[in-house]
């Protein structure tokens, strides 16, 4: 089911009709696979809101789906809309609806780390998505993941950009006392890569990587789990055969140049920056390990949600809106220009464009194209959280039994996000869990313990 669905479509079916379950027909699936994930039906927010209100009214008039469809088929959507607006002031209702609840707090601070993963959070400021949601948001660049964690816990930031597993780690109290955190939206999917130093350009088989020094940005990161997964699948034990170091991204490029590390799995614009400077080459994109994996998240403390629910909803709306905008290929160039200046990511525009448009130099002399090198899809699938928990367990970050489902559902707010998205006139997926495969190995979110047990290389606990 596409996120953007039309309530006035008489042909829509209750059950999805394509293999992935996200589209109405196999043809649409093909189309979406060729084009991009988020395909807006309504061209503006106002139009979308109008549709939401109108469809609510229509549903109230014809509670039976079958009758409604029959009616729409016989008179046509336009006539139906006209008929509905005869006895219901649609315009007024839409305006009232668009205001939703007034935000309790309008001036908000949102922290971010200057990498392309923060794209929706950052671009929402210069491109006016926060203003559209009635908020005055200051996006503040922050020096590192630990600092962003502390500043969000200290309430200096109302919400912030975090690595997808960080809110889970904070909520579980890994490394500190537990504080309930939530993820209302995934910032980006894909968008990382393994970059190696130029001298390793003939060592493309990970089996030859024994003894290498590889860098990751943070322990509780998809970068760490994906690199470990990739190495382990190739028979390299990430804890004994190689050295994994936690290194801040800019230092990765400098260390690679200084020959102090052999490579890294880093968030993008850093990979491309290493190539741009002629220091390294792209071994693979993280997309090739798991296509569609979550990378960074938009996180807020549970306390913020309870004290300022309307501000939180407005913020989520702005982020979802920005994410949908970023998901479209034709907007990517504009976004690259908007977020490249010193106030935001502070990187050369060519580097940003290569990452966001997916036409990039690979460091070995050829130009490659992959429009989904980084992609944007906000829905916080709870099965993502379950997968991260399995990896935390696999590598000994959490010990003992875990109630995977309970943790995932408390932190990844699929239900709330679904409501916000429905209110916005988007069509979120019906389920909060989906299965996927990582390097060809299927993951069943209902059997996490079996999944952990199935790995040969892991830290016993």
């Amino acid at each position, binding site marked *: 089911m596409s996120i953007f669905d039309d309530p006035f479509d008489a042909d829509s079916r209750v059950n999805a009709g394509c293999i992935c379950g996200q589209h109405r027909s196999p043809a649409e699936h093909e189309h979406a696979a060729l084009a991009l994930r988020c395909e807006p039906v309504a061209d503006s927010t106002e139009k979308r809101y109008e549709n939401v209100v109108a469809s609510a009214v229509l549903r109230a008039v014809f509670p039976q789906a079958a009758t409604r469809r029959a009616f729409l088929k016989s008179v046509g959507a336009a006539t139906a809309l006209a008929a509905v607006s005869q006895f219901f002031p649609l315009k007024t209702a839409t305006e009232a609806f668009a205001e939703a609840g007034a935000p309790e707090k309008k001036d908000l601070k949102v922290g971010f780390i200057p990498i392309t993963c923060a794209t929706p959070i950052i671009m929402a400021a210069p491109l006016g998505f926060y203003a559209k949601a009635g908020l005055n948001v200051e996006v*503040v660049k922050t020096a590192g993941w630990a*600092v962003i964690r502390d500043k969000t816990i200290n309430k200096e930031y109302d919400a912030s950009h975090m690595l997808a597993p960080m809110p889970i780690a904070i909520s579980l109290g890994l490394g500190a006392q537990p504080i309930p955190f939530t993820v209302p939206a995934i910032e980006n999917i894909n968008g990382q890569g393994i970059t190696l130093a130029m001298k390793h350009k003939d060592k493309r088989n990970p089996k030859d990587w024994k003894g290498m020094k590889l860098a990751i940005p943070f322990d509780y990161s998809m970068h760490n789990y994906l690199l470990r997964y990739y190495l382990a699948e190739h028979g390299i034990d990430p804890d004994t055969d190689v050295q994994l170091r936690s290194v801040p991204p*800019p230092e990765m490029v400098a260390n690679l*140049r200084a020959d102090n590390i052999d490579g890294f799995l880093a968030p993008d614009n850093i990979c491309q920056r290493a190539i*741009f*400077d002629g220091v390294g080459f792209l071994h693979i994109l993280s997309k090739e390990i798991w296509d569609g994996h979550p990378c960074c998240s938009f996180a807020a403390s549970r306390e913020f949600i309870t004290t300022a629910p309307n501000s939180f909803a407005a913020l989520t709306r702005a982020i979802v809106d920005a994410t949908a905008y970023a998901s479209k290929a034709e907007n990517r160039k504009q976004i690259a220009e908007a977020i490249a200046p010193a106030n935001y990511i502070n*990187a*050369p525009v060519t580097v940003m464009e*290569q990452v966001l448009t997916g036409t990039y*130099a690979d460091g070995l002399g050829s130009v490659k194209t992959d429009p989904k090198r980084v992609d944007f899809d906000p829905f916080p699938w709870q099965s993502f959280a379950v997968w991260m928990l399995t990896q935390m367990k696999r590598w000994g970050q959490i010990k003992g039994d875990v109630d995977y489902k309970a943790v995932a559902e408390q932190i990844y707010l699929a239900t709330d996000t679904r409501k916000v998205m429905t209110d916005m006139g988007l069509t979120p997926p019906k389920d909060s869990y989906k299965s996927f495969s990582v390097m060809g190995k299927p993951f069943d979110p209902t059997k996490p313990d079996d999944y952990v047990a199935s790995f040969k290389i892991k830290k016993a606990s």
Partner: protein
Amino acid sequence: MTASLRLRAAVVSIVLVAVFLGAWHIATRSTGAAANMSPEYAKLMGMTATQGKSAMPGPLDVGAKLWEHLRRPFYDNGPNDKGLGIQLAFSLGRVMLGYLIAVAVAIPLGFLIGMSPLMSKALDPFIQILKPISPLAWMPLALYTIKDSSLSAIFVIFICSVWPMLINTAFGVASVRKEWINVARTLEVGNFRRAFTVILPAAAPTILTGMRISIGIAWLVIVAAEMLVGGTGIGYFVWNEWNNLSITNVIIAILLIGLVGMVLDQILARVSRLVTFPE
């Protein structure tokens, strides 16, 4: 004679700078087009990869960039991009605040320790343990307990600049000549008057030496503290440009940090000359 010495020293200084700049320029010249690349590919790559340009900027790059910064030192493009003048003002503001709090704490406490052998002995172990702690080691603790990053930075400045002042004040006060105190005692001068009219002037040069050491440390620490917490200040500027791998801007920041540090030191040196007396 002194005039000619000064002149000759200036000439040597200029020659040294010229040699340094020349060597720097030659060492960082580009080596011409690197390996042959397709023009389409080359468009996506940086100067280092295509032109064989050194990763280290040359003096001309730094000069041009410096001129750009100096022409508009106070621009403000939102919360994360401000002119160098504003960044320096933020850093100086933090340093001054932390430093003044340290002065307010260290000098009275130093007096107490210097005048009372009991307090001196009792507080000594604490000072000895706290003094060698690297200021940045306090940072995570401060962030966690104070719960405000900019107050944490000020706290770190305070905690690192308090010890030299404290120790110097205590030492200055304790080593005021016994005869002077005895004279004051003979004249039946009260405790307060004795402290302000006899001990303070006598200990002032030592106290100011302590203050001069402290301001140097405070200025050293602010850069590291701001790199850690981010937000504003010259340290944040360095971090932000490091993040962009812009060595040119980092070099400019280093130059400015050095200049400001020198100015701060010279101001206190002047003051300390004012209170020095011939014995």
